[in-house]
C-alpha cells in the first residue's frame, strides 16, 4: 500500500502484549528522582509555520517584493541582531515575550532546518519530523524510541501528552505515554458513591491487571486502561497546582500550565508533548493587524511560552527545562492570491530553557528569486534547508537528555557549532 498517515506501527501493538505500565508504587521512585529530573517539552506548531513571518529578514528587499500584502514592515519587527551571515533579523511584533527571553539569552532559533527533498504534505511531513526518518515515515516516533531506551521498569508518567490523541512523535515500542489534557477531569467516575464506588474502582483496577495473551489489540487497550488507573492519584496532585503567574486561557496556555504543574509537583515526568495549531495559513494570513490570523498565532505562542518561562523561573525550575519546537514545513516565499502562503520547505526551530545558549543558529535564506540561489529550492520558490533537523534532535538527545543520539536516531547527525545546549 501507499504510505498513509495511519500510525499503525508494525510490531507496535504486538509489543504491548509483553509490556506493562508500571504500578503506582513506582511513583515513590519517580518522586525521589523528581526534583532533579530534566524535562523536555516537545512543542508542535501544527500546519506548517511560516518562518519568514516569525523571524523576519527585514533588510531583504525580495522579502517585500515577494510578499506585497503580508510582509511585516521593517519598522515593526522586534530587532534581535544579525546572524553569522550578517543578515539582520527581527521577531514578529507580537513576540514581545520571546524577545525578552531572547535578550536574557535563554532562547535560540535554528534557522533553515529541514531535510533533502522535503515533502510538502502535512501528513507525510509530520510523520517524518516525528520519526526523524525521511525514509520510513511509519517508524516509531523519535521521542518514543528515546523512552524505549530508558532502563525498565519505566514509570507510567515518564511522558505526558497534553492532547487527546497520541501524536506520532511519542509512539513507542513498549512505553505508553498518558494523554492528560486536563488534570482536573482526569478521573474515574462512578454511578454510585461510597463503598459501592470504591468496589467498582477496585474491580476496574483488578480487571485492568490482566494481560491477555495472543490478542495484541485487546492487550493494548488493557495496557492503556492500566496506565490510566495507575496514574490517577499523581495526576490529581497536579490538578491542585497553583501557578506563580497567570496563564492565558488558550488551549496552549492551559497545556503549558499543566506542564508546569507536573514539574512543580515533581511527579517524575521527563517528556511532555504540547501543540498549538492553525499554522496552515493558505489565505488571509494577515500577520500585521491585531487579530489577524498569523498575529493571533504569535499571540497564543508568545503568551503561553512567556507565562511558562516566568512561572518556572519563579519556581526555580527553569534550569531543568528545555522546550523544543518543530513544524512539518515552512511556507512558500511568495504569497499566493489569497494573501496567504502555500506549503514550502525549510523552517525554523525554537529552543528555550534555563540552560540554553540563546542566539541565532544557522543562516537566513537569501530570498532573491534567482533559480540558482543556493539558499532556495523549487525554482527559488521555497527555502532550502541548511541544518538537518536531526542534528537539532541529536544535540538535545546527547546534551540534554543524556542519551545516545546515534542509537535513538539511527545514525550520527551531530553538527559542529550547533551548541545551543
Amino acid at each position, binding site marked *: 500500500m501507499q*504510505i498513509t498517515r495511519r500510525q499503525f506501527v508494525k510490531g507496535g501493538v504486538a509489543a504491548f502484549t509483553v509490556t506493562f505500565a508500571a504500578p503506582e508504587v513506582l511513583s515513590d521512585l519517580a518522586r525521589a528522582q523528581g526534583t532533579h529530573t530534566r524535562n523536555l517539552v516537545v512543542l508542535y506548531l501544527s500546519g506548517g509555520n511560516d518562518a519568514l513571518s516569525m523571524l523576519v529578514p527585514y533588510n531583504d528587499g525580495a522579502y517585500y517584493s515577494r510578499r506585497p500584502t503580508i510582509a511585516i514592515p521593517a519598522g515593526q519587527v522586534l530587532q534581535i541582531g544579525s546572524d553569522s551571515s550578517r543578515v539582520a533579523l527581527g521577531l514578529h511584533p507580537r513576540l514581545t515575550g520571546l524577545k525578552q527571553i531572547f535578550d536574557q539569552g535563554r532562547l535560540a532559533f535554528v534557522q533553515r532546518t529541514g531535510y533533502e527533498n522535503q515533502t510538502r*504534505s502535512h501528513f507525510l511531513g509530520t510523520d517524518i519530523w516525528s520519526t526523524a526518518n525521511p525514509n520510513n515515515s511509519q517508524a516509531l516516533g523519535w521521542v518514543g524510541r528515546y523512552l524505549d531506551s530508558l532502563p525498565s521498569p519505566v514509570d507510567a508518567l515518564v511522558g505526558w501528552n497534553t492532547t487527546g*490523541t*497520541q501524536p506520532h512523535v511519542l509512539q513507542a515500542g513498549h512505553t505508553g505515554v498518558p494523554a492528560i489534557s486536563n488534570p482536573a477531569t482526569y478521573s474515574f467516575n462512578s454511578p454510585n458513591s461510597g463503598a*459501592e464506588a470504591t468496589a*467498582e474502582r477496585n474491580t476496574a483496577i483488578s480487571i485492568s491487571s490482566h494481560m491477555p495473551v495472543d490478542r495484541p489489540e*485487546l492487550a493494548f487497550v488493557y495496557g*492503556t486502561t492500566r496506565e490510566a488507573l495507575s496514574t490517577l492519584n499523581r495526576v490529581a496532585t497536579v490538578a491542585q497546582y497553583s501557578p506563580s503567574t497567570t496563564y492565558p486561557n488558550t488551549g496552549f496556555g492551559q497545556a503549558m500550565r499543566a506542564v508546569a504543574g507536573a514539574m512543580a509537583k515533581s511527579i517524575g515526568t521527563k517528556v511532555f508533548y504540547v501543540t498549538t495549531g492553525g499554522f496552515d495559513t493558505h489565505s488571509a494570513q494577515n500577520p500585521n493587524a491585531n487579530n489577524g490570523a498569523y498575529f493571533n498565532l504569535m499571540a497564543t505562542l508568545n503568551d503561553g511560552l512567556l507565562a511558562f518561562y516566568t512561572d518556572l523561573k519563579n519556581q526555580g525550575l527553569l534550569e531543568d527545562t528545555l522546550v523544543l519546537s518543530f513544524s512539518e514545513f515552512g511556507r512558500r516565499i511568495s504569497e499566493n492570491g489569497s494573501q496567504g502562503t502555500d506549503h514550502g520547505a525549510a523552517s525554523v526551530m525554537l529552543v528555550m530553557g534555563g540552560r540554553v545558549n540563546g542566539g541565532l543558529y544557522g543562516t537566513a535564506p537569501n530570498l532573491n528569486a534567482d533559480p540558482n540561489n543556493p539558499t532556495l529550492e523549487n525554482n527559488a520558490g521555497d527555502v532550502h534547508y541548511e541544518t538537518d533537523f536531526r542534528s537539532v534532535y541529536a544535540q538535545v538527545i546527547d546534551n540534554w537528555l543524556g542519551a545516545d543520539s546515534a542509537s535513538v536516531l539511527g545514525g550520527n547527525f551531530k553538527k559542529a557549532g550547533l551548541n545551543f545546549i
Partner: protein
Amino acid sequence: MSTEVALQMARGTSTRQIEHLLRRAGFGARPDEIDFYSEMSYAQAVDALVNYPSSGDDVDRFIGQPGFVGTTTRGVFSPNSNITDARQRWLFRMVHSDRPLQEKMTLFWHNHFATGYTKVAGTLGATEGTRYMAAKSADDPGHVQGQIEMLRANALGNFRDILVAIAKDTAMLVWLDGRTNTKAKPQENFAREVMELFTVGVGHYTEPDVYAGARVFTGWNLQRPGTASDGSQHYEFLYNAGQHETTAKTFSFAIYPDGNKTIPARGAANGMQDGLDLINALAAHPNTGRYLAGKLWRFFVSERDPDPAFVERIASVYQQQRFEMKPVMREVLLSPQFIDSAAHWARYAWPVEYVVRALKDVGWTGFSVDTALTPLSNMGQVLFDPPDVAGWDAGTTWFTTGAMLARMNFASTLANNQKFNLATNVKSAGISRNPDSVLAYFLDQIATAPLDTGVSSELSAYLRATGAWTGSDAQLQAKSAGLVHLIAGAPEYQFC
C-alpha cells in the same frame, strides 16, 4: 463452563454474523434491529443494508418524540444553524435510523473529505458555518444543502459524482481555500489534498501535479445570490470564468483514456471543463480504487495491514462498476475477509461507534445525546470537526489514557442515567434473586469481545463485594449500574 463461553455458544453462528454486520455496517443494533435482521440470511441482510430506499427517509421527525433518545434544546432545536444541535441530530440518526449503512457511510465520507466546522465558522460565522456543514435543503430558505447532507444523500452513490460535488461544496471551498483560487495566484490547498487524500494518495502524484492542479481549479470560487431579508441569501459555487487560467496543464499521469497527460488550453468560458477532466482522471486513476479499498478496509474490516487480495478485488469492482459505491460496499460486506470470524470484534471502535452502540445496548429512555458531546470530545472525536483534512487517526491512537478514562466515564454517566430502567428490567426478567443470572443477563445485553479469562469471575465478585446479595431495589439499582459501568468500560467493549 464459564459464563462467557456459554453465552458465545448460545448465540448461533448466524446471529453472531448479523451482529458483526450491524456493528460494522451500522452502529450496533437496537433490540428491534436484531429482530428485523435476524429473520434474514446473511446475504439478505447485506442486501437490506445496501439497498435502502432512495426516498422516505423520515428519521428526523422522531426527534423530540417519546420513546426515542432525547435531545437538549436551548430555545428552539436548530440543527441547520446551530452546530451543537447539528451534532445532536446526527447522533440521533445514528441511534434511530433504519438505514444504518447510510449513516455509517456518511461518517466514512466525513472522515474521507474531512472538513472542519471551526474554520468554516471562523470565516463565515457560526450560524453560516453550521448551515454549510449541516443544513437540510428542504429546510433552508436558500435551499442550501450542507456538506454532510450532500454526503448522506450520496452515501452509496458514485464516487466521481461525489468528487464533483465536494469540489463545488461551499464548506470545502472555504475549508481548502478554493474560494480564493484565482488565475493571478493559483491556490494549491484543494489541488494537493484532492490527490493526496481524496483519490490517488501519496506517491502517485508529483509536486508539479499540485501546481498544475491548482491552475485547473482557478475560478472555482463562490458567489452569494439570494436576498438577505428572506434568509435566502447564501454562498454557493460559481465558476468564475474571468479568474480561470486558460493555458494547458500537464500532469504526470493520464488525464484522458488515450493516455494523454495534458489538459488542453481552453477559452475561459469553457475552462470549467479542466476541473471536470481532472476529476474524471482522478476517479479513474488505477490507484484511486486501491486507495479507497485501503480506507474501506480500515473502516469496515480491520486496522491491521490490508489484505492485498481484498484491495485488488475491491479496486477491480470499483473500476468495473464505474465508481459506483453500492456494488463496492456490497462486495466489502460479502468479502470473506469481512465475514471471517477472526474479523469479529477485531476493530477498535471509534468514539461515536462506542457511544451509539452503548446507547443501543444499555438503553436511551431519558438520556439526551447532548450529554454525550463533551465525553466524545474527550474521547477524541468531535463530529463536524475532524482534527485536519486527513480525518481522524483512528486505531490505537483513540486509546490514550485520557480518552480511555473518558470512555469509562461515559459508561458511568449512562449507567447512572439508566439506573432505574436497568433495575426494572432485571426485575421483570425474574432474575433478581441470583447475582450470577444478573451478570449473565447484562453480558448478553451488552455484548463484548470475548472476555479475558477471569474477568467474568471478577465481575461476579463485584456483585458480592459490598455485602450479601438480597436483590432489594436499592441493591439492584446500585449493582446493575455498577455492572453496566464496568462492562461498557471494559477493554473488551472498546471493539466492534
